């Protein structure tokens, strides 16, 4: 059986500057993988390239496979239809639409996949049900992230790409959100998570990858990676253990 996501020889460049050069990255179905690294290391660029989505205009080359199917050359919306769903950093919802509209105004999921209903999303995030008629612009940062994740689930992702969901959230919210995502993975979802908060990521992920200057420099089961000296020194520091 092929991996859920398989990246090979991926190169992403802005103008002449190469931002990401990843030779190989594999995500197995039903796992939660994390990509960690410093600011500007290329984490976001990497997962945006998987979705073929960006706010800038990067040049992307290389191979991205979903369940063995080659995605290269497909637009972002075509990848969404095949089950690659990105929740981008910062702005993942439409502030001018109500909460409920954010959940209903999505393209229908591809055949053979079970999409979450709006009620399912409300059951997962009861807070959103209370605010269903409000504009997304009036939500707090944490609520917006819930809404962004809920919106993504509505499109029945096979692979959910989360770009820094914890950014700007209070510590308690971070752990709540990440443990909700862990629960989703335990129910069978596959997630690739980009996180700057290495502590929080190490709590919930199965596999961690460390990216530095656009290259994957280490990767493996989280139990092993926790003790990797590069991670301990740079990210976990004295707090570890």
């Amino acid at each position, binding site marked *: 059986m092929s991996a859920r996501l398989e990246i090979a020889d991926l190169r992403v460049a802005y103008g002449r500057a190469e931002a990401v050069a990843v030779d190989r990255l594999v995500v197995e179905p039903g796992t939660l993988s994390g990509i960690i690294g410093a600011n500007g290391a290329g984490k976001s660029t990497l997962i945006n390239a998987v979705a073929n989505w960006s706010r800038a205009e990067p040049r992307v080359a290389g191979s991205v496979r979903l369940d063995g199917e080659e995605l290269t050359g497909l637009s972002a919306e075509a990848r969404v239809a095949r089950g690659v769903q990105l929740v981008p950093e910062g702005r993942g919802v*439409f502030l001018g639409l109500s909460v409920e509209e954010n959940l209903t105004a999505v393209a229908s999921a591809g055949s053979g996949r079970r999409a979450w209903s709006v009620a399912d999303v409300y059951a997962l995030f009861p807070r959103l049900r209370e605010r269903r008629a409000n504009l997304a612009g009036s939500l707090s940062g944490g609520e917006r992230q819930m809404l962004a994740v809920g919106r993504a689930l509505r499109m029945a992702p096979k692979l959910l790409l989360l770009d820094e969901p914890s950014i700007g959230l209070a510590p308690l919210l971070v752990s709540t959100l990440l443990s909700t995502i862990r629960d989703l993975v335990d129910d069978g979802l596959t997630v690739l998570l980009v996180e700057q908060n290495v502590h929080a990521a190490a709590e919930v992920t199965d596999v961690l990858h460390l990216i530095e200057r656009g290259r994957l420099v280490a990767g493996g089961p989280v139990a092993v990676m926790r003790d990797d000296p590069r991670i301990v020194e740079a990210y976990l520091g004295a707090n570890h253990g």
Partner: protein
Amino acid sequence: MNVAQQLVNGIVIGHAYALVAVGWTLLLGAARLVNFGHGQMYMIGAFVAWWVMAATGLPYWLAVVAAVLLGAALGAVMQRLFLRLTLSQDLVNLMIVTLGFGQALEGAAGLAFGPKPQTLASPFQEMSVHLGPVWFTVQDAILVGATILVFALLYLALHRSWLGAAVRMVAEDPRLTALGGFKVSRIYMGIFAFEGAAVAFAAALVAPRTPILTSMGFDQVVMTFVVVVLGGIGSVLGSYVAGLGIGLFTALFGALVSPAYTTAAVFALLIAAMVLRPGQLAASGSFAR
């Protein structure tokens, strides 16, 4: 002076302004595109309706349908041409390109329809209704009714339908819209086609009031710019209210002060509004409301 009659005139002119502006309002709100070719698209709509009637002898209402269809096609052509600039939100180049598009339309219309003024003859222009001290033509009544209908339908479509939500999504963040599984270019196609169809519809209804010329583009729709801006850029209801307000203003100003300076007065009003309330021009905030 018959004030009641001036009010009626103002209401009719106001609805004409609003109807001419409606497509552009959506285009500006959703694609942030200032269409300086809007006037020439109006002219094309009027001439197509005229040509259909003159060349084929079809009745007026079929000419209206033909104009609307051709207008939508013209909008679609615009989308094909401008898509790259629209997607990259290259607003400065977009504005210039619409000026060029209008210029090309005017040249083409001159070649096709000649320099002579023509009359788009609507049978309803000859029928008038007298109500006490005031009167208006049946064409006027149709114009007012159609305007209210178009605005109501657009408002409902934007707020109560899935398609409307898609348009509002594109207006807010076209890139994010793609992550909802939407083909953004197709939504733009709908918006541009609506602009073309709406302005052609407006032309077919408004043009019977005056002779039509291929050079009339800019002059005929100068008020549209004021309506769209004063209404709050991209605001549907705002455009309606602004159109009505400016219609009343021009009718009363023309009757009470000076008909020659009406346009200047309206534009002075616009400039004053911009100086006093520059925040009103903060685009996209009020879209679709």
